[in-house]
Structure formats: structure tokens, C-alpha cells
């Protein structure tokens, strides 16, 4: 089994390039500290990016979102960890519980690296955006929401493309790897959306107070709010 030797500074480009040697060492357990490395990358990358997301509402909100954005990822993996591992096994991929966690952390670490690299640009963009007290704050809020959503979507798509290619290569069969990927993606999106709902606000609606969590964060859920919004859009 090849040992891929690289220091922490080499881990970032190796992850971005999708180097198989690094992941082989991590999955095979021949390189220690992989979970810690991925967790650190998620904290730093998503933390820096989250800071720029919340900065429009001031430094306090920036600090809140810097904590909450990595927390969404960790809480999702915590709640879905057992399920992800079991699905991987039952779908015939041959990937165990620890390996499932490693795959998912690797994917999220890649996403965090991309977001962290974009954070200087989003920081500059936020500094140039009129404040929430501006008369056109609603439009600026919509623009911020859309641009950050696009950036997170881009990072997420790229990272999950890598995850899919890893799974197809390391699973017992490509078909089992693809099925496992779809199962993980569905479960994590489903749970992640609700965790994001509970941990809101991230962008902060103009006019509402800056808070770490909204009052009664566990009341209601993401899917009920989507359904309500759809009902409000249609006359039915």
C-alpha cells in the first residue's frame, strides 16, 4: 500500500487536485490525523467564508455565522453518520462506517477550501455593499443571498463531483459507489436543510435584530416554510 507523504501545506492542493494517493492513505488508515485535518480545513474554510456572509450586518453577526456555517456541516454528519455508514454497507459499496465519515469529511473539506479561497473576494464585496439601513436594503439583501448561494452551490457541486469519483473508484463496483453517493447526498441535503433552518439567521433579514439564533429555533421546519411559500405563490 503506497504511503502518500505530504505535509499540511501540501494537503490543500492535493485535495483540490483529487490525488488518489492521499485519499488511499486516508481510507486505508496508513496516514493518521486525516479526520483531524479535514475537520480543521472545514473550520477554517467555512469559518472564514461564514464571516464574510454575516459581515453585512456587522462584526457580531460575522462572528455568529463564522461559527454556525461549520456547525451545519458537523451537525449534519453527526446526525447522519450512522445512517451514512449503514447505507454504504447495505448498498454494496464495501465502505465501512469510519471510511464513510472519511469520504464525507474529505468532500466537505474540499468544499471548505474553495469557499475559504473565495472569502477574500466576498469580504471585499461585502465591504462595498450598502448597509442594511440603506433604502434599497431589500434588494441588496436579495443580491447578497443569491451571490452567496451561487458561490456555495459552485463549491458544493465541485466537491461532490470529486466525492462521486472517489466513491466510484473505491467502492466494490462503480454502480454501488454511485448509489451510495446518491443516498448520502439525499440524506445530507434533507437533514442539512433542516439544520440550516434551525441555526438561522445566516444572511439576516434587514430590519430584524442581529441574533445568534431566532427565538424558538426548533419551532417549524424548513419544508413547512417552503410549502407555505408555495401556497402563498399560488391562488390555490
Amino acid at each position, binding site marked *: 500500500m503506497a504511503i502518500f507523504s505530504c505535509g499540511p501545506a501540501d494537503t*490543500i*492542493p492535493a485535495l*483540490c*487536485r*483529487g*490525488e488518489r*494517493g492521499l485519499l488511499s492513505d486516508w481510507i486505508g488508515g496508513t496516514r493518521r490525523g486525516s479526520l483531524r485535518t479535514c475537520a480543521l480545513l472545514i473550520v477554517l474554510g467555512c469559518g472564514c467564508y461564514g464571516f464574510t456572509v454575516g459581515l453585512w450586518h456587522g462584526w457580531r453577526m460575522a462572528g455568529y455565522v463564522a461559527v454556525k456555517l461549520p456547525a451545519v456541516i458537523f451537525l449534519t454528519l453527526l446526525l447522519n453518520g450512522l445512517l451514512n455508514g449503514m447505507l454504504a454497507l447495505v448498498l454494496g459499496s464495501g465502505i465501512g462506517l469510519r471510511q464513510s465519515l472519511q469520504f464525507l469529511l474529505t468532500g466537505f473539506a474540499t468544499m471548505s*477550501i*474553495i469557499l*475559504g*479561497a*473565495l472569502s*477574500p*473576494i466576498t*469580504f*471585499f*464585496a461585502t*465591504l*462595498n*455593499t*450598502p*448597509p442594511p439601513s440603506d433604502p434599497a436594503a431589500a434588494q441588496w439583501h436579495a*443580491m447578497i443571498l443569491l451571490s452567496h448561494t451561487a458561490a456555495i452551490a*459552485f463549491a458544493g457541486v*465541485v466537491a461532490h463531483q470529486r466525492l462521486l469519483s472517489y466513491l466510484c473508484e473505491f467502492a466494490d463496483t462503480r454502480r454501488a459507489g454511485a448509489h451510495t453517493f446518491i443516498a448520502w447526498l439525499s440524506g445530507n441535503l434533507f437533514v442539512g436543510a433542516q439544520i440550516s433552518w434551525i441555526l438561522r439567521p445566516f444572511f439576516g433579514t434587514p430590519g430584524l435584530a442581529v441574533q445568534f439564533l431566532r427565538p424558538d429555533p426548533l419551532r417549524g421546519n424548513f419544508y413547512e416554510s417552503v410549502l407555505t411559500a408555495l401556497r402563498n405563490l399560488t391562488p390555490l
Partner: protein
Amino acid sequence: MTDEPTPPPPAPSRPESTSQPPVLPAQPAGRNPLAGYQPLDGDPDFPNVLNKLLKKPLSLVHHLETSEESGRIPLRLLGITLACLAIFGVVVGSFSGGHQLWAAPVKIMGGLLFSGLICLPSLYIFTCLGGLEAKFRTIAGVMTALIALSSVLLVGFAPVVWLFSVSSSSATFLGFLLLALWLICSGFGLLIVTRAGRALGMRNTSHLGLWCVVFLMVTIQMTTTLRPILGPAAEHFINFREKKFFLQYWSEQFQAESDAAARVP
């Protein structure tokens, strides 16, 4: 031994690379994207670096990647950038005169270098996503080459800018002209980035295309952040209070210009 000129050395292989060399589709003659990725001819002094920046920029990239003493080239490129932007900035500032003669060059130099600095991490990560195996200092060198080439070409357009600045009193028109010139000059600079990416082994340059769009938006927004660069100097060197997106700012300027023209009998 003959008197015939020796052929240029072939593009060196990358012995420590763990990835396969790029397999390029068949290209028409003269359109090989790796053309020019060869050792630097001569010493990396100012005249030679400027010459190669215009004629064979990939040879600079080759030197950045392979030479142990590659730090001199980014410094030379930085010097070229500062000199060219200072000249261009004075020409731009001559439109209004007064304080703008020094404020415009300072803002243009500072703004462009700051834009490069905040876009550098994303350039490195996006090139890695495309499969590129290069050192961070090489990518930083490519960024300085991009900015340097754009700056050199801006100086080439300086006489054009001067002509319109002395024959027009419309800051909005001149502003649009400068933006258009920046898009042209930076386009040539961004070509270096994509060609360097291919030469250094990138398999997929689509991420670079996205990065190029982001870089252009950052530089254009920087002109709005640091306003006024054209027109009379304002009370504050940089207006941190009034924040505007560049599209909003330019549409307001255009509207104001149209309204002023409509009021003229």
C-alpha cells in the same frame, strides 16, 4: 560541428510530476498552447523580462517553475507594473489636474495590486481544481505577469487616453473608455493565465474561465470603490461612507450625463 543555428531546446518534461503529461488534441500548425514554454533566454533583468513578457510570457512561467532563484522575476514584474501604472495614472489624472495628478496613479496602482492580492488564493485553488501541479510561488508569479502585461498594454494606450482627455470634457465618456481599454488589456493578461495553466499540466481550464470573470468584476468594482479617479478630487481620498456597486454607479453616471445633455438647449 556545423555553423547552422542550434534548434531551440524541447519543452522539458516535469520529472517530479506524478500526473500524466497533458494530452492535447491535434492542433493546427502554429496554435500549440505549449509553444513558448521553454527555458528563459538570457538573464532575468528588466529589459529581458519586459521583452519576454510581450513576446514569450510562457518562458517566464517556465523560469518561475523550474529555477531555484525565481524570486527575481516577480520583483521585476512588480517594478514594471508600478512604473507603467504610474505613467498611465498620471495621464488619467491629467484630465482633471490638481490633486488627481498624484491621486489617480496611487489609486490605480494600489487598487490593481490589492485586487491581485485578494484574487490570488482563489487562483491557486482553482488551478489546483483543474489538476495543475505547480508551486504557489509559480502561481503568484503568473498573477504578477498578468498584472504586468495588462499594465504594459495600458501604457500603450496612454496616448489614446490623453487624446480623448484633452478633447472631451465628459468624465463619464472617458470612464467608459478606460473601462473598455482595461477589458482589452486584461484580456491579454488573462490569456497568460490560461496558457500557463495548460503548459503546467491543467487538464480542465473551465474553472479558470470562471476565475477570470471574478477577477474582472473585482477590478471593475475597485474602480468604483476608489472613486473618484476621473473628475475633480473629492473631500476624502477614498469615500468609505457611500458604498455602491459598480453597475449602480455607472448607470447613475450615465443617467446624469443623459439628463445634463437633455437640459442643453
